[in-house]
């Protein structure tokens, strides 16, 4: 018996096998690429149409090698195919493609030349500097501008030197702007490579020159970042600039430049800037969450300037901690509603482990003015503070009592749920009943153990008034679960009409199909006829609403039909079957079409199901025969699909699907797919059809994806 192999040996072998597989896959892919390249080159060398050559170029972007460059280069002067050839040349690795683009850049003019220059820039071809230098002086301003940008993309000291030399002599505004862009691009790359001083020189050159504002904006940002902490004075200067665009780039750069010194410098400006700017600076400071100077922001929150206060209070929401609590509490009680509302929002979201503890402490010592805010915070922050909240239920002020109830609703645990049950069932003040019931509902649906919750609620029913019983039943229906269902079933059979009414109504809205057997049984055995009808409708409502295997749904409809002779409920069953089309459902619908009272509805349902199932899944002729409809002679004259001016002619598609019934079943499930795309995305569309049935002209309009059932003219 051989020794077991070590884990390491097995892993090594598996790895080797995988590498071999990978290399053979790569080899196979390379071989396929070579074959493909040969095929594509044959197209380029042939007298194939421009369309075929264009597609060949596009594929050479993947399969082409240096061997393809010669043929591609021949297309560069071709106005139609030049851009297609560059698609391949930009992608093919190696120096041959660069050389071909440089050669063309030396010979071509106008837009085609610009294309070559752009591609050299994309490929960052350092050997292109001479040709780009030449083109930088081109009399065609667009060519010169393209060369400047390309130099910026190539980057490096030599490219930068060419641009710096060109700037003082360039006079055409677009070219000057492009040279500045090239300089900034060079500087960005230097900055990313850690060449701060070199990049700063370029940025300063641009921002000191007579340039369009946007170039100065970019250069100013770069000049600040390149100087790092030494850029703070320039940052501050920018924030005070009379130019709005420079102030704005100051705000953006303030978010990018790191360091505590920056935070302090920004904070120092709050008193020196006009309030509108100071407010915007506070927002920028809050976007530096790790180092935002809290004291400065809190000070701003206490000024008289509303704009500044709003910005500061909102900033504290994002970066504040427990130290901000007193200021925010004071602000939350402010007479200015905007400021106070925002402060409450900030308090609700304030970070910090100590915030909740402090809120509870404040609540214990609160007065009637601050207690509503603190109770609201207990609720919104989900602070477990039942002991501190309870005393407020005894307050004389009903608004405070209601705030306390709401807080309990948001925070009480299962163990203390009875507190709220008592408040809901036997409120000390009648005016508290609604608030208590709402709080109980909020608490109940939040309980992780809904059976345990339902047990407490069910037990409370026995000792409650009828009105309270109804409330508890409503809450139980929201909670759901086995016990809740059982309790509602029992209530639906109670001798009290009010309970029968509530329970049968709530069971019909049950949140899953578990209520189906209960409702079906009630449909047969409920004490009053009106509730039997309601139960059956609720039962069908479940069949209509919830996801389930279609066979189960059809069985529910069948059971409902068997349970009553009422036509109205039979029609409801048809609606369910129509909404959820299935072969089983169609069979049942066809069967119902034999009943005279249902023939019309069942026929329409059958056609609708056929429409939704679509395609070849239903034989229209057989269906027409089965439901006893006459066939017709249908001619489609014109069909358009779309919205407003974006109407698409879909006559041929509709004609193809038309048969000898007034129903047109499309191949795909929706109009867009059937009609080859969305003619008006994001807009409600219509399908308009002009037709003749039995030689009578008609016209109909259908909402997007509606069943296409043509009315008889």
């Amino acid at each position, binding site marked *: 018996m051989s020794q077991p192999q070590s884990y390491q040996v097995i892993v090594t072998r598996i790895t080797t096998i995988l590498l071999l597989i990978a290399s053979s896959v790569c080899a196979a892919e390379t071989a396929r690429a070579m074959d493909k390249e040969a095929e594509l080159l044959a197209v380029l060398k042939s007298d194939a149409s*421009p*369309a075929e050559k*264009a*597609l060949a170029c*596009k594929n050479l*972007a*993947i399969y082409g090698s240096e061997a393809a460059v010669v043929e591609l280069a021949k297309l560069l002067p071709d*106005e*139609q*195919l*030049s*851009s297609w050839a*560059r*698609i391949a040349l*930009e*992608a093919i690795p190696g120096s041959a493609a660069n050389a071909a683009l440089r050669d063309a850049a030396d010979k071509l003019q106008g837009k085609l030349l*610009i*294309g070559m220059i*752009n591609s050299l820039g*994309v490929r960052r071809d350092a050997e292109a500097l001479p040709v780009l230098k030449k083109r930088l002086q081109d009399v065609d301003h667009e060519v010169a501008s*393209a060369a400047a*940008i390309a130099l910026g993309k190539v980057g490096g000291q030599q490219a930068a030197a060419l641009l710096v030399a060109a700037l003082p002599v360039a006079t055409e505004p677009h070219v000057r702007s492009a040279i500045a862009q090239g300089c*900034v691009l060079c500087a*960005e790359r230097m900055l990313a490579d850690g060449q701060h001083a070199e990049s700063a020189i370029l940025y300063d050159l641009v921002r000191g020159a007579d340039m*369009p504002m*946007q170039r100065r*904006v*970019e250069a100013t*940002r*770069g000049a600040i970042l390149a100087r790092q902490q030494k850029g703070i004075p320039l940052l501050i200067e920018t924030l005070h600039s009379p130019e709005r*665009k420079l102030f*704005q780039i100051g*705000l*953006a*750069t303030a*978010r990018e430049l790191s360091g505590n010194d920056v935070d302090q410098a920004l904070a120092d400006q709050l008193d020196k800037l006009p309030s509108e700017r100071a407010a*915007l600076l506070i*927002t*920028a400071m809050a976007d530096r969450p790790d180092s935002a100077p809290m004291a400065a922001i809190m000070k701003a929150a206490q000024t008289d300037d*509303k*704009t500044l206060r709003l910005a500061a209070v*909102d900033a504290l929401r994002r970066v504040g901690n427990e130290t901000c609590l007193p200021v925010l509490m004071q602000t939350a009680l402010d007479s200015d509603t*905007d400021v106070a509302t925002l402060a409450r929002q900030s308090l609700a979201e304030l970070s910090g482990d100590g915030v909740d503890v402090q809120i509870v402490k404040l609540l214990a010592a609160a007065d009637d003015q601050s207690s509503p805010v603190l109770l609201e915070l207990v*609720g919104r922050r*989900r602070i477990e503070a039942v002991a501190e909240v309870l005393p407020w239920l005894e307050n004389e002020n009903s608004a405070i009592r209601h705030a306390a109830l709401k807080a309990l*609703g948001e925070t009480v645990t299962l163990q203390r749920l009875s507190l709220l049950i008592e408040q809901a069932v036997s409120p000390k003040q009648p005016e508290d009943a609604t608030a208590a019931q709402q709080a109980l509902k*909020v608490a109940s*649906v*939040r309980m*992780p153990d809904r059976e345990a919750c339902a047990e407490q609620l069910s037990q409370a029913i026995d000792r409650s008034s009828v009105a309270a019983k109804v409330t508890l039943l409503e809450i139980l229906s*929201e909670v*759901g679960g086995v016990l809740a269902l059982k309790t509602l079933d029992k209530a639906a059979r109670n001798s009290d009409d009010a309970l029968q009414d509530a329970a049968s109504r709530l069971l019909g809205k049950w*949140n899953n199909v578990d209520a189906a057997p209960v409702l079906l049984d009630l449909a047969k055995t409920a004490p009053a006829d009106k509730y039997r009808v309601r139960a059956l409708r609720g039962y069908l409502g479940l069949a209509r609403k919830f*996801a389930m295997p279609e066979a189960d749904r059809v069985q529910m409809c069948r059971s409902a039909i068997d349970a009553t002779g009422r036509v109205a409920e039979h029609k409801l069953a048809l609606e369910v079957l129509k909404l959820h089309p299935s072969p089983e459902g169609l069979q049942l619908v066809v069967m119902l079409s034999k009943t005279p009272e249902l023939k019309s509805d069942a026929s329409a349902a059958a056609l609708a199901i056929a429409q939704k199932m679509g395609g070849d899944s239903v034989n229209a002729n057989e269906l027409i025969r089965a439901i006893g409809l006459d066939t017709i002679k249908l001619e489609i004259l014109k069909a358009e699909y779309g919205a407003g*001016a*974006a109407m698409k002619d879909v006559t041929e598609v509709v004609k193809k699907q038309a048969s000898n019934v007034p129903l047109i079943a499309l191949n795909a499930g929706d109009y867009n797919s059937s009609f080859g*795309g969305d003619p008006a*995305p*994001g*807009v409600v569309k219509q399908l308009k059809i002009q037709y003749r049935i039995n030689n009578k002209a008609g016209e109909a309009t259908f909402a997007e994806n509606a069943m296409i059932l043509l009315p008889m003219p």
Partner: protein
Amino acid sequence: MRNQAPEVPRRRFLKTMAATAGSTILAPTIIPSSALGRNGAVAPSERIVVGGIGIGNRGTYDLGCFLQQPDVQFVAVADIKEKRRVEVKKIVDAHHGNADCAMIRDFRELLDRNDIDAVLIATGPNWHATAAMAAAAAGKDMYCEKPVTKNIDQSLILAETMRRTGRVFQAGTQRRNLPHFAFACELARTGKLGQLKRVYAHPAGMQAMMSGWLVPETEPDKNVVDWDMYLGPAAWRPFNSQLLDGFNFEKGGGLVGGGVLEWGSHCVDLCQWAVGDCPPPVQYDAPKDGQLVARYANGTELIFRETGWIPLGSCPVRFEGETGWVEAGDSGKIVLSSPALLAGRDVAEIGGYPATFHVRDFLDCVKTRSQPKGNADAACNAHIACHAANIALHLGRQVNFDNQTHSFINDEPANRLRSEALREPWRM
């Protein structure tokens, strides 16, 4: 974790609030009263002057969201189609009660106007990134519809450019500003679901598409439809009216266009938010059984899947952690593994994915210079994830992405698909 649609208990659905009523997790909109005139009109200094570029169907919807904002003054529309220029002017002039909205064929003329602070870019996806770059170079802030980029390199350049130029960029990923999606992402991001294991995105079709070279038709007058400007950065081809469907033209560009990008730029974007806007996944498997699995560096899986969703409307996402899960969709509703996750919170239930809040977020950031929710860095990461998934789809095999070098590891075919040359004279 189960994938079948479960019971959907009412109590697990969030409480409904009117869209305008605000909620605990909707960011406050502060237009200080000092900025308001006596009639509630916004003072001129507080107004944001906006122009529109490529305002078609979606753009008209976005335009409506902008015009709802009291501090927006819309002054110009640039579009290559005369009909649209006229239609947009009519809407804007009627709103402002004047005849001031300028109609411009070439958007560069709009960008040259110094009075315009910000632009709405709602062209087809072919133009999004290129127009955004031009807007940034001209010093405009921008709200740019999605998908924002056509490939990985464009995504990276876009993010870098917005940083360098100091521009405020908001991608049209409006679900980032809808409370229920925000809440779902927050649960995932803040560990309320336990250690995050899987995030799911609905790609809504993984089919690649390419806008070809169709049979030439007579080119309309330039003033009616400017075909050259319509093509813009896309490689040249003759006029054909079928290609005027800007919504799909050159979407995703290259050979791998479309795919997961159309909805991925929403759903994957939300998944990215759920994982804390970290760099995109590093590994993308070949698609299998209607789903594609990608993996982040920490092992969390990003799963693109077509089926298995709870019926919560379009654009669903699902986040699964060790201790819980959450799923949300465009109905405005979310389903949670436990009601305890809701912790009693009221979260506004706003269905139908309106962009109003997203536009407001953008405008607030234009004023404060903060980063909006759909900022360029976030959009860049989400789009890279989509592009990389599309490349795995196109190649039909696993690809591995290095977030340091922004390239695929030892994979030349994949790397060649990271970018594509733009037609002259356009550049990124």
